[in-house]
């Protein structure tokens, strides 16, 4: 399978649609023209793309929690609670694992079982099983835009059904999927997401904008320069298909100045490369994912991470933040804990946005280094595809020019090793074959060496491993001892 950056001709998408909709009986309920008419009668306040564009214009940060359960009425009750008690601006619908893996009959069975046992037997909402009609009940039961949250190499049918039902946001793209699939080749993943992007572009062309949201797996422990590169690539791939509402997500790592710098540079790079590739009309917004690593079991410590994340979202100019909950460490949170996370986030956003975060030398240096790194890698990827981004991405992964640490995908080289420096910022312990400019590499080496000296031990992957678990233990650095 060969992929290119070119927008699919409409005929190609329509031809492929027939096969996609035939995957499962619920696919027959999708009528694209009827869906467009349905979207057109939804009030603008229920459109995620418009809400995000407006938030960007007004300099506000929207709040979105995560939630999804097996039973329709329970899911609706959950979203209403998050809307009313949590004050969420955007409402999530996280998809269960069976549906993500297209095991629709097992999802159906789990719905029945959930009803019998009186509790959710799925880790998300099986949107395909409920079909267009069921999903519209969700959209109509709440007053905020509803976002479809999933990650899987092939969610084409789910996208067809849920977008037709009035969902106006859809997470993930090809790069973001690399943590969720072991064997699927890069070309196939890109192809499947291009289908969804092309479908979104169709809605958009008909006056029904849909927000496409990207972030990469384990983003919080990936060096921010690499997060920026890979997430911007997902954004550019979507734009190639004509989908222009692009939300770029960054994962908080807990280092205040690096988190702020990264969010700011992510939007800059998104805009710069969108313009360079001829997608100047794209509406680019950013979001902050509160710490995506292991959470502390202690609610108090969990709150501190949530609060720091919220402050960073405001100071980094994000238009949205994805909220974690004080119960995060224990699995799917209760609706109360979820609303608490939203409330704490809201208060921090209000305070941090009013006050602002002054730019000092540290922040400026970090931003300058991130720009250097992002441009060097993105330019190399484009070169490798001779100007075609999609082809460049495939070649870059083969060559290790793109390489995502900790990804389980076997087509990812996995030579990159991150580590924190003494201030908690993520650096490259080993950049693998990523073409870092010499200045950036020297900056990272110097910062890591300073930590090694402080701790009196050489930098090694032992530090990396400890760093990944540190925040869940109430530490920033994996030093084995409390800092401060």
């Amino acid at each position, binding site marked *: 399978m060969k992929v290119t950056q070119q927008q699919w001709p409409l005929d190609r998408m329509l031809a492929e649609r027939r096969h996609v909709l035939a995957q499962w009986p619920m696919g027959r309920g999708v009528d694209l023209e009827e869906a467009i008419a349905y979207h057109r009668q939804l009030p603008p306040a229920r459109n995620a793309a418009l809400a995000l564009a407006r938030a960007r214009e007004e300099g506000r940060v929207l709040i979105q929690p995560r939630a999804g359960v097996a039973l329709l009425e329970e899911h609706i009750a959950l979203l209403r609670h998050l809307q009313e008690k949590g004050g969420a601006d955007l409402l999530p619908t996280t998809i269960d694992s069976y549906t993500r893996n297209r095991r629709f009959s097992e999802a159906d069975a789990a719905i029945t079982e959930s009803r019998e046992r009186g509790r959710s037997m799925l880790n998300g909402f099986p949107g395909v099983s409920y079909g267009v009609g069921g999903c519209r009940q969700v959209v109509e039961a709440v007053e905020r835009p509803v976002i479809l949250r999933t990650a899987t190499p092939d969610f084409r049918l789910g996208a067809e059904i849920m977008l037709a039902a009035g969902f106006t946001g859809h997470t993930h793209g090809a790069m973001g999927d690399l943590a969720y699939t072991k064997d699927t080749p890069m070309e196939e993943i890109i192809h499947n997401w291009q289908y969804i992007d092309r479908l979104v572009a169709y809605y958009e062309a008909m006056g029904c904008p849909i927000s496409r949201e990207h972030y990469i797996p384990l983003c919080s422990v990936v060096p921010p320069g690499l997060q920026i590169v890979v997430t911007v690539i997902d954004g550019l791939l979507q734009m190639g298909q004509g989908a222009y509402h692009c939300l770029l997500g960054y994962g908080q790592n807990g280092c*205040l100045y690096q988190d702020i710098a990264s969010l700011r540079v992510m939007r800059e790079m998104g805009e710069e490369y969108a313009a360079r590739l001829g997608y100047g009309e794209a509406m680019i917004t950013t979001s902050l994912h509160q710490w995506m690593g292991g959470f502390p079991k202690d609610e108090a410590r969990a*709150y501190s991470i949530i609060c720091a994340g919220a402050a960073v979202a405001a100071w980094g100019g994000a238009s949205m933040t994805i909220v974690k909950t004080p119960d995060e460490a224990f699995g799917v949170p209760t609706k109360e804990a979820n609303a608490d996370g939203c409330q704490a986030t809201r208060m921090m956003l209000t305070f941090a946005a009013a006050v602002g975060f*002054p730019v000092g030398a540290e922040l400026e240096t970090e931003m300058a280094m991130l720009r250097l790194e992002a441009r060097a890698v993105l330019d190399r990827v484009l070169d490798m595809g001779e100007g075609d981004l999609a082809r460049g991405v495939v070649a870059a992964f083969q060559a290790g020019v793109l390489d995502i640490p900790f990804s389980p995908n076997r087509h990812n080289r996995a030579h990159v090793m991150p580590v924190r420096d003494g201030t908690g910022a993520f650096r490259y312990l080993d950049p693998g074959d990523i073409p870092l400019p010499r200045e950036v590499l020297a900056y990272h080496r110097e910062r890591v060496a300073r930590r090694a000296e402080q701790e009196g031990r050489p930098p090694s992957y032992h530090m990396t491993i400890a760093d990944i678990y540190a925040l869940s233990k*109430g530490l920033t650095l994996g030093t084995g001892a409390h800092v401060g």
Partner: protein
Amino acid sequence: MSVILPVSMQRWPEDYFHARRREVLATWPTGAQVDLHEAMAYLRTLPPHQSSALVLKQAAAEGRAVMQPRAGIALIDELIQVLQELQEQGGADLLPTNLDTYTRENNYHLAELGIEESKKQGRNMLNGLPVVNYGVEGCRRIRAAVDRPLVIRSGAADSRLVMEVAWAGGYSDVPCGGIIMPTSHHKKVSIADSIRYWQYVARLGAWYTERGWPINHEVFGGLSGTLVPPSICLAYVIIDSLIQAAQGIKHVSPGYTATCHLVQDVAGVRMLKRLADEYMARFGFDDVTATTTFYQWMGAFPCEAAQGMALICWNTMAAVLGGATQIVVKSYQEATGLPTAQANAESLRATKSVMTMLANQRLPDSPELLEEMHYIELETRAILDRVIELGNGDVVLGAMAAFESGVLDCPFSCWLPIANKVLPARDASGAIRFLDPGNLPLPQESIDYHRARLNERARQRQVPLNYALTVADVVAVSEGRLIG
């Protein structure tokens, strides 16, 4: 020697001090237990890490912050359990003992009834520990049961007997201030009496310090706890630091109250340290170690626990980024009454976790920060220099005259003799400004600046610039907003 010396900044002569001691110790039977030389022999057996002064000094040298919660109940065995929980589960670096209201009013008879009632009813009937009633032996029981330095937390006008008992019993710290306590806690006390009471306490602390058990004097910067402009806070605590230092103390920790404006708070803490050192040196107290204490929000707290947590985390960011040495921690149950030990410990852990995440980072210099520091410095110097001038170099006499003329003033004080002419309000970024500076001797540059910043807010909100802003600001934080 029964003649009372006229109040002044002079160090009390040794025999005068001991004559006053005899009077104080005679006011309640447990006073007879206090024997300074026996106490000194006991204190020499305690490890240095149980001295608050030494713990703060070391933290300051290492650029770390330490945490102190607040706690106090009627029965000593129960208090010991609470303190142990705060030490073990909360990770408190210093352990508090708040006094009950009867003891603060020197009404030891009623305090005794409170102890008996608590025992009889099996529940806590006092809002703190009646230290005097338990005497030196009681304090030593607490000392033996925990391992951190012990601090009396008292807003009393007259804590002389309390401190006699507590310091002989192994405590090593107290929030103090002869000019501060009337402003913050007392309607009617005479300023001369209040200054004398705290000079006594300082003189007593100096006695122990000089003999090898260093006592810390936390100068209480909480004041009215309600929209206190930073320069007022700084002027008050530096004056009281000087008054205390004149009695021979060697460890002072002037306090700063959170405004909830990150940049203003960082500026306030940094300027407090700089000006405290400078004025101490100017009066020849170069050998006094000055650390800084940061109080999390002293105004009304929100009722929602999640918002309370957010407020605690928000304040901690400012304290750490400003380089404060000690953080006095609130609890997320602040709005609803005395916190449970568990809630108190959780609030400590949230505070600690933010400290850890920030990894001893400081807010770097920026135009916004330098501007804020400039005005705080300008105003604090103007008030301090005028006070010194009014007393012809005697800060006690100067402060007394300054209160009469309104050169010293504080908004929302309960003390009847205060001028009460100052009115604060928040500007558009949430910083506390002077809506009306009353008779404070502020330079015109400063008055114009505050006025301009407030005008910005009034323009943005399209509201008139008057006390209605102040009223709205007083309740805003408790409702989850920074600006009213």
